[in-house]
């Protein structure tokens, strides 16, 4: 008798990804929203006129190059970690950290070049925006460098390898994001300065 059959259907396991990685992506979205707000404010404010036009310092090209290179070395380190080439991982993450610091120093020189150019934080908003955008990005980059240093320390403790990639992946994601964010800001400034 089928009426007496007791069939228990199996509920499906729900799709999910690593919670920490997912949370990182959500954090990246909040950072995107901050910069979207600031660059929109920039465009709205520019549209209202009374906008001082000045040449962007050439140093920005150098710093942009540095951060692009750091993304390449980051990816190199990531691939090396996947293949368990631990010495290369140390080297790659070390170079990336160094390039990150170099970028920050470079941005500081950019500010110096701006001051030489008579563009100050206080003054026409076109200059203030440049300081705020680069400064806020720099602040996020500091957090990225701290993350890199944490990963670097764990590489020296041999805790980063193909079986333990979570931290490395998150660091790479965040670093590539910060790189892409800067490239966006740079192109945005080139087009709208």
């Amino acid at each position, binding site marked *: 008798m089928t009426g007496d*059959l007791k069939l228990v*259907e199996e509920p499906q396991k729900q799709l999910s990804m690593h919670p920490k990685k997912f949370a990182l992506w959500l954090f990246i979205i909040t950072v995107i929203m901050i910069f979207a707000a600031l660059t929109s404010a920039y465009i709205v404010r520019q549209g209202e006129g009374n906008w001082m036009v000045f040449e962007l310092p050439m140093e920005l090209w150098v710093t942009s190059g540095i951060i692009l290179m750091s993304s390449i070395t980051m990816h190199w380190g990531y691939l090396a970690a996947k293949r368990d080439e631990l010495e290369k991982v140390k080297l790659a993450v070390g170079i990336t950290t160094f390039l990150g610091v170099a970028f920050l120093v470079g941005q500081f020189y950019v500010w110096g070049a701006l001051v030489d150019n008579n563009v100050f934080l206080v003054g026409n908003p076109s200059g203030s925006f440049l300081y705020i955008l680069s400064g806020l990005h720099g602040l996020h980059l500091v957090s990225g460098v701290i993350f890199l240093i944490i990963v670097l320390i764990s590489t020296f403790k041999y805790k980063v390898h193909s079986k333990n990639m979570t931290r490395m992946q998150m660091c790479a994601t965040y670093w590539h994001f910060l790189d892409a964010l800067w490239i966006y800001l740079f192109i945005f400034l080139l087009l709208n300065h």
Partner: protein
Amino acid sequence: MATADIHITQEAHHDDHEHHDEHHGNFWTTYVFTIDHKMIGKQFLITGIFWALIGGALSVIFRLQLGFPDMQLEWIRPLLGQWVTPEGKLDPEFYLALVTMHGTIMVFFVLTAGLSGTFSNFLIPLQIGARDMASGFMNMLSYWFFFISSVIMFISLFIETGPASGGWVIYPPLSALPQAVNGSGLGMTLWLVSMALFIVSQLLGGINYITTVINLRTKGMSFSKLPLTIWAFFITAVIGLLSFPVLFAAALLLIFDRSFGTSFYLSDIFINGEALPNQGGSPILFQHLFWFLGHPEVYIVLLPALGITSEVIATNSRKPIFGYKAMVGSILFIAILSFVVWAHHMFVTGMDPFLGSVFMLLTLIIAVPSAVKVFNYLTTLWKGNIRFTPAMLFSIGLVSFFISGGLTGIFLGNSAIDIQLHDTYFVVAHFHLVMGSASFFGLMAGVYHWFPKFYGRMMDAKLGYVHFWLTFVGVYMVFFPMHYIGIAGYPRRYYSFTNFDTLNTFSDLNMFVSIAAIITLGAQFIFLFNFFYSMYRGRKATLNPWGSNTLEWTTPLNPGHGNWPGEIPAVYRWPYDYSKPGAKEDFIPQTVPFSETPESNLPHENELIKLESDTDEDVIVVDEK
């Protein structure tokens, strides 16, 4: 007789949380620096109640000024000190501070943190079947950032120059220049610091809520089986995640304008005939950035209340929610629209009239999903087997406010009518009904409904009824007359109307409103007594006092850390199988498989069982008895 019994779910299950159940922390780890989502939810609730009392008290003080402009306020001097002038009147600048702080506290600290913080934290893991939030540590940080932010905002109430007083929207240049008003000095700085920390708290919370809902659902809990509460909390968190960073950007630029001399929002300002150095800024820019958060914030406040209402109304009507998919769809649609209507707060800023009509059109479209929700609430109630619990009354009250307050939104959304009504008491009446009171009633409904799960005891229903009726009638007595006052042209945020002959006509109505406001605030003390008394002395609750389907009622009476002592139950059906024809009882919890309810299954549900039995044929154990 053949019996086939398949237990595929009996896989070896190891969970470290089971060991934690035996472990009891000390006072500090249990009640203060806890990472348990239930305790964090309660922390948010208690802090929210504390803020609600302060916010309510502030409103009564300025209602005294508005209703009784000639009243002697000498008796309140012990509390307010120098804010009562030597003539026994309220200081006009302090009046502005009261209005500002009332708005800030109620919108952010009570209805955002107190509502979302309490119920998202408490209900998300319990209703989706998770041990805890994705990151308990981040959750703890979220509360403590909120706590520090609260402390700073609280301190700002007591400083000599007074708290921020440029309105809760803190428009520059008023908020940017300390010369403008006393509150724009240190008070405003503290406001900005406090709100920056508040935003961090909200983002930490929001990231956690979204991650948890997406990644930690129990077996079988697909998105189409989520309770509507979770849908609402989830979308609320998404809105918060997208809009709070924008407020942060706006506040950041304001901080630079105030403290570092930049000119993002300031231009061509003369004070006492002397020009300020700031050139090239635009105060309208701030309004754009602020309202890009500010409008979604309305739905951050309202959506959790609507979610709670959906759950409470379905449970207490003993009927499935009408139009589950339409409810989810309208939440999503409202969320999307909330990001493209912000400029309806700025119709009179001199914006392009064509742009105004675009924003007007988008604004009026919000009436469609809102009406869908109202329709579905009413049709759920229709011919239901209604149980008027206090939570149910508050939910029905919410629907009432949502209708009466929502209708005036259609007027205000018109850019032409807004010219007359902008910044009058009509606006105040509108948003206090549709956003303030409706969300507050959602909060109350949630507290009454989930109190048994909070503390394992029941709140007293009779006191609940008294609380409901006094509050419900009180709210209408306060805000209904305000519509007339507003249409007559009374502007909001004015200290006094006695200097204007045209505005003397409604002083009796203002008096009425003030008395009603005092009664309404007084009624809340009934709730407070009920809440704290029931916490310790209330009737012991049963495991599922409301006969509800959702997962939180399958936990022990006082669930420990990890929520379920054994395995997390799996989910087989949606949460709204109430009064299903043929069923033995008038509710079937989500954990009951279709195979156990052959008497009430619909054809397509029987298909589901067959489907499973086909694929799992090899595991069928036929037990011949």
